[in-house]
């Protein structure tokens, strides 16, 4: 078993020889990856390297053709997305996917129901227990929204928010599922330098405050190098390098992949 360099904490997610093919195309090939508890890992690579596909494999959107994925010590290969979320994997999307007809509050509220015993009977009876449970959900959601300064827009339709707020709301929504591992798919896309700086602060804050592991796919080297403790590099579906930001910066294979070998 190949261990990641610089691994200190026990592993929460591990991918072993994970491969996926779409028809003739091998999008990810023999990928090995480990993420430790409370670790902040970056996944980088040129366009089309298979980063988002790797995300989709981890979150169960696609099932791998070969290989094994383990989460918190349990095999989770080919589990469906909502089951993985229950186990503690949450994500955001490259192109923001908020629930477009729900308010900010309801977007987050919808993400809280997975840890509650299903409420058909309760919702229909509308008794004291229901009111108490709903009040608790409301308190929890508001607390989250306030932390991220979204409480003031709780009743706005989510998709009517400014772009930066939508990005943030997506992160809040993912946090509402109480994850152990948060996957961020290009969180800095479309942001200006000030917003990016703010985002970096935010990601560090989340890691500290919620004590969770974070993995992010990002194009912006500054962001990745600035916050990640460890970075894995993909090219053509294969991992070509892994290490601390300092190591990656000097890795000739990585430089070649980014600058071209010729």
């Amino acid at each position: 078993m190949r261990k990641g360099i610089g691994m200190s904490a026990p592993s929460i997610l591990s991918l072993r020889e994970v491969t996926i093919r779409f028809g003739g195309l091998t999008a990810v090939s023999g990928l090995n990856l480990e993420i430790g508890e409370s670790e902040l890992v970056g996944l980088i690579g040129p366009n089309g390297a298979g980063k988002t596909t790797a995300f989709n494999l981890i979150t169960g959107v696609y099932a791998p053709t070969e290989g094994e994925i383990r989460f918190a010590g349990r095999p989770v290969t080919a589990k469906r997305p909502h089951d993985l979320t229950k186990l503690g994997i949450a994500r955001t999307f490259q192109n923001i996917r908020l629930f477009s007809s729900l308010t900010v509050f309801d977007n987050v509220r919808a993400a809280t129901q997975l840890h509650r015993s299903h409420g058909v009977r309760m919702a229909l009876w509308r008794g004291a227990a229901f009111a108490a449970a709903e009040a608790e959900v409301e308190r929890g959601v508001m607390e989250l929204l306030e932390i991220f300064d979204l409480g003031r827009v709780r009743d706005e339709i989510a998709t009517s928010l400014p772009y930066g707020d939508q990005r943030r709301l997506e992160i809040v929504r993912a946090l509402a599922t109480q994850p152990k591992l948060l996957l961020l798919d290009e969180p800095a896309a479309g942001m200006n330098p000030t917003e990016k700086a703010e985002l970096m602060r935010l990601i560090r804050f989340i890691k500290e405050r919620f004590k969770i592991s974070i993995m992010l796919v990002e194009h912006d080297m500054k962001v990745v190098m600035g916050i990640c403790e460890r970075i894995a590099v993909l090219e053509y579906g294969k991992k070509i390098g892994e290490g601390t930001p300092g190591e990656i910066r000097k890795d000739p294979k990585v430089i070649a992949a980014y600058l071209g070998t010729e």
Partner: protein
Amino acid sequence: MFSRSPLSLPTACQGAKRWLIAAVLCSILLSFGQFNRYYLGVAMDVGINIILAVSLNLINGYTGQFSLGHAGFMAVGAYTAAKFSLVFAVAAPEPARPVLFLVALVLGGAVAALSGLAVGIPSLRLKGDYLAIVTLGFGEIIRVIVQNLEAVGAASGLKGIPKYTTLGWTFALASVTVYVVVSLVNSTYGRGFIAVKDDEVAASSMGINPVRYKVTAFVVGAFFAGIAGGLYAHHKQFLAPTGFDFLKSIDIVVMVILGGMGRTASVALAAVVLTLLPEVLRPVSEYRMILYALLIIGLMMARPQGLFAFGRRAVK
């Protein structure tokens, strides 16, 4: 439309039940009134259509599935309830009949719900047009089976169904339907329906099981369609398989769309208007369906969000 102010959640929760009880009591009082039979008949049609439209709205409006088979669920409920009444209730003593009627209705709803489960399962893999055609096909298959089932009169239809449906039953059950759909959707659990409609992939990444929500929507929707069918059977006292064809499903879909998908009150209002409209248009009956068709087209152009969809809501 949805509860928004911080205090609205718990209060609305408890208020709703009170309103339900009031509406049901009102309905029961109504059935003691003496009314012109024609208006009474139309009023019952209105109530039945409210149930159909509001229950379809859970599937098509809130959960974003496109079902064209609601008439099929209605048929299942109608025939089940009618057959039950013909076998058990007719022979039973008078005081037992309301109880037996309720049993018949619930049984009809339950069998319809089972068939909703059967349709909900293919919906796991199909989307949009494909799902629409499968549900349409389901409705037609139900019709063909009923048409060949001698036990329920086959093509000749089922006659002699006792007249148990009253204004009270109809509107009490319509109130229950509205209550159930509204309560279900207006809860943390219920936001899942809308989340599945808005973005299935995102919903499932938030721990919402889309399959479970879709099947729930189909089962609950079918259950109430079955109840409506039972009321219809004991209102018209005669069932013919041709009454549950594709056009009947379209009628219900139009009510949902006219009202505005995913708005219960508007959809109920649309059911009222669309039931009364043909009656109002009777004097020009030869142009009635032409006008109906033009109404559908005109509406889609002028107000695709629904004729009665007032209030703010993001329209994409």
